[in-house]
C-alpha cells in the first residue's frame, strides 16, 4: 500500500505542476487529470466519471490577478487518488461508498489546496527578494526554476495528507449507508450548473440558455 501511496502522490504532484509551474496546458483540470491518473492505475472510466462530475463545480473559480481560487485541480487529483487507494485497501469494497469518500475528500482538498497555494506564494516571496542581493542572470533563472520544486512539494503534501487520512478512516467506509450512483453524482453536477449560471445570468444570456434547455428536452424525446 505504501508503494501505491508514493506513486499516487508523485504522479499527482507532477500533474498538478501544470496548474501554475509549467506551461498551463490544463492537463490538471479534473476532466483530464482524473481519467489520466485513472488510466495509469487501471481506473480510466471511474476517473472520467469523477472528472466530469467535479469539473463544473469550480468553473466560476478564476485565477484573476492575485486572487487565489479554490483548488479545483487539487480536488480532482485527490478524488481519483482516494478512489484508487481505497479500492486497494478497503475490505468489502463498494463502488458508491468509495466514490462518496473520493468526492468528499476532493472537495476538502479544494480548500486545503487553496490554503497551500497561498502559503506557497508567500514562501516564493523569498525567491523574489533574493534578486535584491544577487541579480546575476544565473541567480534570476535558477530562482525561477526553484519555484517548480516548491510547487511540487506543496502538491505532494496536499495529496499525502488525504492519503494518510484515507488510511485512517478506511475501516469506517463500510458503515456508510447504501445509495445509487445517480443520486450521488447529481449533487456536484447541480452545484456545477449553479456555478455556470452565475457566469451566464450575470451576462444576461437567458434566451440562449432557454434555447439550450429546449434542445435538451428535444434530445430527451429522441432518446425515449
Amino acid at each position: 500500500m505504501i508503494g501505491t501511496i508514493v506513486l499516487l502522490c508523485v504522479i499527482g504532484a507532477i500533474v498538478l505542476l501544470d496548474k501554475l509551474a509549467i506551461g498551463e496546458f490544463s492537463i490538471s483540470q479534473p476532466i483530464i487529470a482524473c481519467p489520466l491518473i485513472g488510466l495509469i492505475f487501471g481506473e480510466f472510466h471511474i476517473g472520467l466519471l469523477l472528472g466530469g462530475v467535479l469539473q463544473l463545480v469550480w468553473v466560476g473559480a478564476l485565477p484573476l490577478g492575485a486572487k487565489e481560487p479554490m483548488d479545483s485541480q487539487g480536488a480532482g487529483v485527490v478524488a481519483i487518488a482516494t478512489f484508487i487507494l481505497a479500492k486497494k485497501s478497503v475490505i468489502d469494497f463498494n463502488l458508491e461508498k468509495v466514490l462518496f469518500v473520493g468526492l468528499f475528500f476532493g472537495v476538502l482538498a479544494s480548500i486545503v489546496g487553496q490554503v497551500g497555494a497561498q502559503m506557497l506564494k508567500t514562501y516564493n516571496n523569498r525567491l523574489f527578494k533574493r534578486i535584491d542581493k544577487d541579480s546575476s542572470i544565473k541567480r534570476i533563472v535558477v530562482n525561477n526554476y526553484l519555484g517548480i520544486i516548491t510547487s511540487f512539494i506543496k502538491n505532494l503534501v496536499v495529496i499525502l495528507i488525504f492519503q494518510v487520512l484515507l488510511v485512517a478512516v478506511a475501516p469506517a467506509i463500510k458503515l456508510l449507508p447504501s445509495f445509487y450512483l445517480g443520486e450521488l453524482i447529481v449533487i456536484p453536477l447541480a452545484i456545477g450548473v449553479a456555478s455556470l449560471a452565475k457566469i451566464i445570468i450575470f451576462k444576461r444570456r437567458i434566451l440562449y440558455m432557454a434555447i439550450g434547455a429546449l434542445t435538451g428536452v428535444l434530445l430527451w424525446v429522441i432518446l425515449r
Partner: protein
Amino acid sequence: MGYFAIIKAFIISLFLSSSWSYLGRQSNGIWAIILQLIKPDKRDNVKAMLVERNAFNTNPYCTGVMIGIALNDENQIKQESFVTLQSIFGSIGDEYIWRTLRPTLLSISVLVLLIGYLWIKNIYAVSAFSLTPLMFLIPYNIAVQGIRIKGIYQGKKIGVMAAVKLVEYLRRPITKFYNLLAFVMGMIVVIIPLVYLSSFAEHIKSFTESVAAFFTILGVVIVSYFLMRSERSSSYLLIAGLLIFLLIKVL
C-alpha cells in the same frame, strides 16, 4: 526569427509562473525568460530595469507577444510598455481565456460526457465518449498556446503592432462564446435529471416520480445558485450537499 528560435522562446516561456509570489507575482519569470532569450551584449539593458522592477502580472498566454516585442528592439526595452501591456492583456486575456473559452470548452466536454452516459448507461462501457476530455484539451491548447507562440513570432517581427492585433483578435469572439456557454448550460440543466432518471436510478418507475425527481434536482440547482455568493461557496455548498445527502440516507 527562425523556427528553432521561436520554439526555444516558446519552451522557455512555459516557465513564466514557476516562482509566482505575492511580492513579485510573475516578475521572476518574465525577467528570467527575457534574460535567457536576449543577446548577451544587450542584457545590461534588461538588468538596468531590474533595479526599478515592479510586480508583473498578466494573462500567461498573452506574455508571448510581450516577449516578442522585447526581442524586437533589444536596445530599447521599455518598462512603461510592459506596465501598459500587462494591464491590457490582464484584462482582455482573462476575459477571453478564463471567463469564456475555458468554461465553454469544459462545459461542452461535460455535456458530451453526460449524453454519453445517457446513451451507454454503463460507466465501464468503452466508447467514443471516453475521448470527451480531448474535446476540451486539444482545441483549448491550440487556441491558448497558439496565442503564446504566435505572439512571440509577431511581436519579434512587427513590434508593438502585434499587441494591437492580438487585442483585436481576443476582443471579437467573446460575445459569441458567452452565447454558446449559455446554450450549453441550458442543455446541461435538462441532461442532469435525465442522467439521474435513466442511467442509474432504476428504482424510479412512475411518471409522477420522474417529474418529482426532475423538479427536485432543478430545485437544488436554483437553491445552490442563490446560496452561491462567492466562488468559495462552491466548496462549502458541496460539503453541505454531501453531508445532507448522507444524513437523509442514514435516516
